[in-house]
């Protein structure tokens, strides 16, 4: 029995490591896997002893320690996102959601999972509508009622809150600042570095929130001061924003079906370049015209297949007729030489999620 590796000097340990490596190789060459395994365990022990002898054992072995549940969080990603969004209370970009979660909840949201989240949710909703208590869905742009780029919302929120008008990015930013500040102001949450960083990120971009005289130093944010500054600017924009959102929400309720209300409409430009115009376009436009407004279309929306065509019909209506009223009323693009205007797609242009593909 060789002496315990812990007692050896680094030189002796290195020798021992080399010996063990050779022994492992010999055992493998001889086909004796059992012996090789024992020797490898010995080798690992010797290597660890070398680490401790040379580097000191105070730094631990961060790479070897298995990541615990507490670090990653035990909840599914959509639950985590839901928690962060509920705290923020406004449509938010994945990055903000991630930093809010990291600041106020145990663990963090793996970033890569966020990118596909909305599409997964849409697919799930199309397959079995309202099967889940809530869906993570899109914000709707106020003018075209399409999905706003890079924002996540919760389906149970009032529609007004999910609409994104021209002023909404700012009001949402300020509201988020307010909510975060209020949350940080409770208890001693503000002392964690992640919370402080989050508060600072909001405060630097809100006038009056980083006044050194009131906060007591650079880089220090008093949640109460931040909240007050955010509310002061919010007062300037809130009313106009609320009107725009309300009008858009009314239009959305009148024009969109269930899926579109959650995940937005889509326009598709018809390309007539060089070749003949796509044959499908006139047909689907006729189909849209014949179905538009009929009660049958609304009823048919329950089936999966017909839901797609009914949404195409309604999409056709909202696309060919400029979404009347509202500040974005004239926003639907006009027919131009190469684009003969947005047409209702028979199928979704990206083919990513049409309910019948999976």
């Amino acid at each position, binding site marked *: 029995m060789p002496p315990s590796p812990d007692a050896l000097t680094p030189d002796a340990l290195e020798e021992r490591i080399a010996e063990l490596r050779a022994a492992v190789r010999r055992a493998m060459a001889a086909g004796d896997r059992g012996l090789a395994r024992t020797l490898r365990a010995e080798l690992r022990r010797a290597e660890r002893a070398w680490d401790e002898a040379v580097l000191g054992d105070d730094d631990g072995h961060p790479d070897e320690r298995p990541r615990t549940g507490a670090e990653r969080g035990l909840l599914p990603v959509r639950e985590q996102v839901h928690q962060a969004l509920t705290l923020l209370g406004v449509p938010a970009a994945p990055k903000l959601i991630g930093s809010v979660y990291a600041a106020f909840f145990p663990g963090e949201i793996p970033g890569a999972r966020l990118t596909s989240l909305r599409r997964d949710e849409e697919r799930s909703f199309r397959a079995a509508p309202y099967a889940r208590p809530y869906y993570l869905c899109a914000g709707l742009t106020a003018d075209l009622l399409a999905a706003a780029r890079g924002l996540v919302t919760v389906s149970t929120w009032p529609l007004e809150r999910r609409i994104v008008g021209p002023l909404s990015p700012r009001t949402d930013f300020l509201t988020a600042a307010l909510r975060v500040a209020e949350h940080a102001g409770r208890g001693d949450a503000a002392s964690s570095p992640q919370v402080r960083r989050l508060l600072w990120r909001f405060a630097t971009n809100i006038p009056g929130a980083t006044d050194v005289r009131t906060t007591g130093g650079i880089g220090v944010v008093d949640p109460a001061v931040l909240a007050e500054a955010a509310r002061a600017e919010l007062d300037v924009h809130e009313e106009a924003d609320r009107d725009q959102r309300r009008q858009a929400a009314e239009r959305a309720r009148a024009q969109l079906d269930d899926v579109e209300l959650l995940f937005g409409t889509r*326009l598709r430009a018809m390309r007539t370049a060089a070749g003949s115009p796509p044959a499908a376009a006139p047909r689907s436009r006729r189909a849209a015209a014949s179905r538009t407004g009929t009660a049958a279309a609304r009823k048919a929306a329950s089936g999966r297949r017909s839901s797609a065509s009914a949404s195409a019909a309604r999409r056709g209506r909202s696309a060919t007729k400029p979404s009347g009223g509202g500040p974005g009323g004239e926003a639907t*693009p006009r027919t131009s030489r*190469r*684009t003969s205007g*947005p047409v209702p797609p028979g199928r979704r242009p990206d083919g990513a999620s049409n309910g019948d593909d999976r």
Partner: protein
Amino acid sequence: MTDTALALERLRGGAPPRNHDARTIAALTANPGCARRGVMDAAGVDKDAVARALGFPAQFGQSQFAITRGNAFEAKVKADGCAELLTLLRDRLGLTVPEVSYADLEVVGGNEGRELRYTRTRRLLARALESGEGTLFDHPLLRLDIAGQPAYLEPDVIAFQLGGRFHVIEIKSFAVIDGQAEPDQVAAAARQSAVYVLALRRLVTELGAPADRVSHEVFLVCPENFSNRPTASLLDVRPQLAVLERQLARLTRVDRILETLPDDLTFAPGEALADAVRAVEARYAPECMSTCEMAFFCRDEARACGSTGALGRSVRDDLGGVESIGTALALADGTMEPTPDLAETAAQLRLAARLRREALDGAA
């Protein structure tokens, strides 16, 4: 659709067109006489792919790391409803607090079609001009006629503010250290921004407003010192604008070049690609190396036929009328009798040859 557009579509061989950007237009003005580049750019041919298919892959190009860094910085500046950008604009340009309206023009209803985006940009800007609505326009799509063909351009952001003027905002990821940035980088940014300003001015004029509602001062946003924090400065692009306007007016019109080309010419990949590319005349100069993907192919061609252009623009200008190096040498050593219009050049070449001979003899 016009005949020219059809012809360009055919040249592209069915591939989707590549967006012209301010970088390529700034480069285009550097060599306005090159028909090959003019035609390929107008048709939106993927020159990089063509060069690779011909066996002359371009060695340059923006580093992937630089692109990633640029995108990350831009995303940071624009995060949370352009929060950092608004702070900068309020600080430096005196943007008032109520002006925070933000319009995203990168996607229209889930659609990224260029015509659609252009139409929408146009409409929103028209409304802004009329009623003063709207402050920030993110990734608008502008159009500029290059050699008779429309090219689409995407500035990072346009800000519209009190006083009723548009400002082009350019977000660049090179650092401004202690108030100083690298002059080359700033010059390139100014050239690019001038293209945006010009395109925006054309649009504003089309919409019936005076061109000076677009400011000639560009708001350049860069990281400050060694941090990731943005800082901004105003950049006057009037000189670049003047150069650009002059060069664009001089550009050979593409339809005139197309008339001289065979009807069945196409740059689709295949056996005949090299011949097709050679069918369009190029004007190679060593400067092309830093701006054009086709440069290696053109250099090879220019060297093979002994073109004087391969020696540099000044040499070609000095040898006005003498196309190839062989002719120049023959004129210099007297083995070729010059035509009357080349007599003066020939005399100078002979003088130069005699001086060189004497200098070499003296050295030996």
